[in-house]
């Protein structure tokens, strides 16, 4: 230990390029390097989680049990959810935040660069631990990503203990990341970058960071109670000791509902950059976008029990959570209408990022509307725990969050690499994904309304046709993502030199830097007018 970093490096690293070799990535304090690490990590997790989804869809291709054991099926649904939420979507947004926020606000780097590195490097270890549970006695966690008690307590496999500590590690990573983003945005803005001039991606991330700080500790609390219930004899979620399994759901969803906004607000920010760029018009209703995002965040703390309408909560609770949930449609509607008004009479062109952004607006809105259907407590009694719910949250997460991320990656990739995007390849990826995603998830609405339960490896014969369609769509979507990998890697390797502005209508500090930007952008703060 003594040889490590005991001397002080008295010059700050501003005028250096990146270090050489693997050390660059292991020891880096540079926001761009850390952003890149996050994005590649998230891509790998996306492919792993996606393979699990394909295994699920392969099993569901036909009724009856064909490929995998029901127990393993449960492990797949659990790990697929956990990996996509904590390993793919969240780190991708943190990666984009790392890359873009310091550049967008004219800062030299993130506020706390060493802690930034730590936030990232915890994740590979946490997920290695989670995935190693697949090879343990009793198998990987099999209780669903929502780990409801008593499935995760009384009936849990031994790997639940590793799951608990893995979630703790992810939580530590997220909390440090959120603190860093808050410190960066509140303290590192260039002179003249006042609050109401902040780019929307920065605003949405600031609000997201507050959500993370408020709910990740609650997740830590609930997994801790699971741990003590399993191993130390407590009875938080066991009515025999005076506890309550429903209590688990309350605490979990107090985390879980803001969590779904954590996964969508940054995408709102990205889309709010892309649509004005390709409509060649300033964003309609900037201030209302900021207030709408903040309202969604505040409301997200008052709606959690809409996930629990059928569990047996008092009537007053059902009513309160039903109306509070519907209220979220108001600020969300403001956003959707603002995007539409931005495009109204614009000179729109349809480059790849814009295609993804437009698909985001349309398909996310479909997911939002099915969410409103689910918000109506009496209707939810019919939909609860069916494929309708699966269709709903995949519409907001896949063509919502994931398309938002992909739109952002295609939008900023030329800036990062300095190479113009191959439009043909980008569009090919878009259309295959767009068709694949709808083929996969749209039929799930129908089989859900008809009563097919989620998280079951077998189903009744009348659901066979739509399941087959969904499985074909899933494989189409899944394999199309290899095109995405190809597009990103070939853009990194070669391409025509991009201009600083990259896209004709692009505005903001990030487009004033060279493409690619220098390793240390803005050692001197830019002047913002």
């Amino acid at each position: 230990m003594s040889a490590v970093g005991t001397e002080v490096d008295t010059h700050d690293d501003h005028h250096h390029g990146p270090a050489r070799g693997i050390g660059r990535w292991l020891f880096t304090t540079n926001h761009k390097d850390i952003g890149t690490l996050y994005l590649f990590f998230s891509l790998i997790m996306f492919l792993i989680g996606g393979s699990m989804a394909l295994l699920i869809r392969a099993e569901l291709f036909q009724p009856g049990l064909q490929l995998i054991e029901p127990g393993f099926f449960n492990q797949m649904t659990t790990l697929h959810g956990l990996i996509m939420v904590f390993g793919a979507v969240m780190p991708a947004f943190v990666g984009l935040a790392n890359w873009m926020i310091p550049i967008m606000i004219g800062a030299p780097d993130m506020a706390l660069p060493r802690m930034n590195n730590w936030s990232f490097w915890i994740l590979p270890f946490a997920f290695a631990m989670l995935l190693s549970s697949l090879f343990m006695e009793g198998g990987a966690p099999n209780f669903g990503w929502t780990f409801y008690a008593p499935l995760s307590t009384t009936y849990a496999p031994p790997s639940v203990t590793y799951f608990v500590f893995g979630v703790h590690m992810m939580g530590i990573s997220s909390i440090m990341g959120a603190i860093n983003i808050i410190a960066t945005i509140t303290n590192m803005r260039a002179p003249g970058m006042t609050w109401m001039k902040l780019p929307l991606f920065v605003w949405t991330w600031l609000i997201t960071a507050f959500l993370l700080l408020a709910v990740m500790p609650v997740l830590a609390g609930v997994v801790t109670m699971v741990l003590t219930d399993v191993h130390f004899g407590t009875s938080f979620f066991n009515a025999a000791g005076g506890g309550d399994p429903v209590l688990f759901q309350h605490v979990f969803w107090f985390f879980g509902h803001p969590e779904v906004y954590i996964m969508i607000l940054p995408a709102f920010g990205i889309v709010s950059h892309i649509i004005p760029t390709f409509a060649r018009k300033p964003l309609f209703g900037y201030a209302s976008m900021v207030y709408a995002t903040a309202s969604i965040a505040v409301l997200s703390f008052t709606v959690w029990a809409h996930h629990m309408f059928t569990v047996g909560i008092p009537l007053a609770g059902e009513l309160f959570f039903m109306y509070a949930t519907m209220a979220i449609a108001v600020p969300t509607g403001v956003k959707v209408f603002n995007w539409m008004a931005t495009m109204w009479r614009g000179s729109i062109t349809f480059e790849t990022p814009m295609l993804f952004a437009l698909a985001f607006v349309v398909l996310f809105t479909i997911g939002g509307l099915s969410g409103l259907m689910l918000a109506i407590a009496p209707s939810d009694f019919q939909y609860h725990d069916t494929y309708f719910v699966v269709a709903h949250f995949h519409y907001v997460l896949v063509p919502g969050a994931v398309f938002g991320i992909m739109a952002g990656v295609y939008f900023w990739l030329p800036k990062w690499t300095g190479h113009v995007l191959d439009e043909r390849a980008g569009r090919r990826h878009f259309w295959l994904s767009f068709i694949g995603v709808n083929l996969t998830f749209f039929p799930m609405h129908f089989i859900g309304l008809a009563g097919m339960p989620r998280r079951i490896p077998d189903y009744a014969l009348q659901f066979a046709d739509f399941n087959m369609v969904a499985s074909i769509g899933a494989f189409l979507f899944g394999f199309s993502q290899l095109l995405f990998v190809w597009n990103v890697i070939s853009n990194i390797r070669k391409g025509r030199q991009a201009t600083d502005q990259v896209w004709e209508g692009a505005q903001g500090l990030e487009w004033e830097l060279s493409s690619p930007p220098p390793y240390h952008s803005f050692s001197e703060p830019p002047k913002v007018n």
Partner: protein
Amino acid sequence: MSESHSAYYVPAQSRWPIFASVALAFLGYGAATFINSLSGDTPASYGVFLLIAGMTLLTLILFGWFGNVITESRAGLYSGQLDRSFRIGMVWFIFSEVMFFAAFFGTLFYVRTLAVPWLGGEGDKGVSQMLWPQFTAAWPLMETPDNTLFPGPKATVSPWHIPLFNTMLLVSSSVTVTLAHHALLRNDRKRLKQWLAATIALGIIFIGFQAYEYAEAYHELGLTLNAGIYGATFFILTGFHGLHVTLGTLILFIILMRVMRGHFDPQKHFAFEAASWYWHFVDVVWVGLFLFVYVL
């Protein structure tokens, strides 16, 4: 945004974070393996070694990492703007800690006002009485619904003995740490050391009394983790608070060591302030505990 950006210190590459990640992985994997071996699920004995190795490594790394930060700070590399980043970081870290405790306080309130009364047949979901028809709701819950699986406590801790005394200890320790801060601002190093030492002493006495109370709860009152929901909420709240007091005392002790070495001056002493904020937070949580866990 008064200072210019060019003064913002962006550290060079650092080895600490990746090593800290490895240490944390040892700690997590070791803890899980160790805890599983306690329940006999996996007989693996290496868990405890991995856990200890992880904790030791993490401690060493944090010493080295903070050591780096202290040396850089004393070398004058940190601007006022960086100081603000630290302050913002600490404030929001404490906020996340508040939310951690909020989860357990929320659990306590839910159980007391809804879950236990429902099990006793009251209110909207009183139908759950049918599960254990002989059960009567009460708080503290001395008889659990299944009293053989979760034998309720024979008695609970009286708030007016040790807990009241502990409240006085912690509240006065908040005062002493503030007095130490005032002494630091006056550059009165002697008083600074005395008040800081007094704060640490109060913290240690508090932990001692808590340990004594736990021993008594386990051996005489039958108040254990297994004693139904009263025991569970009692120990999770007081236990995590106790851990935080221990951590806070350690932090204050390190601050005292730094004071002894002549660190901090009336203008620049962020670490001292951060430690005292943390201490006040721990104190406020205790007041909540005293009211809702012990008294009411």
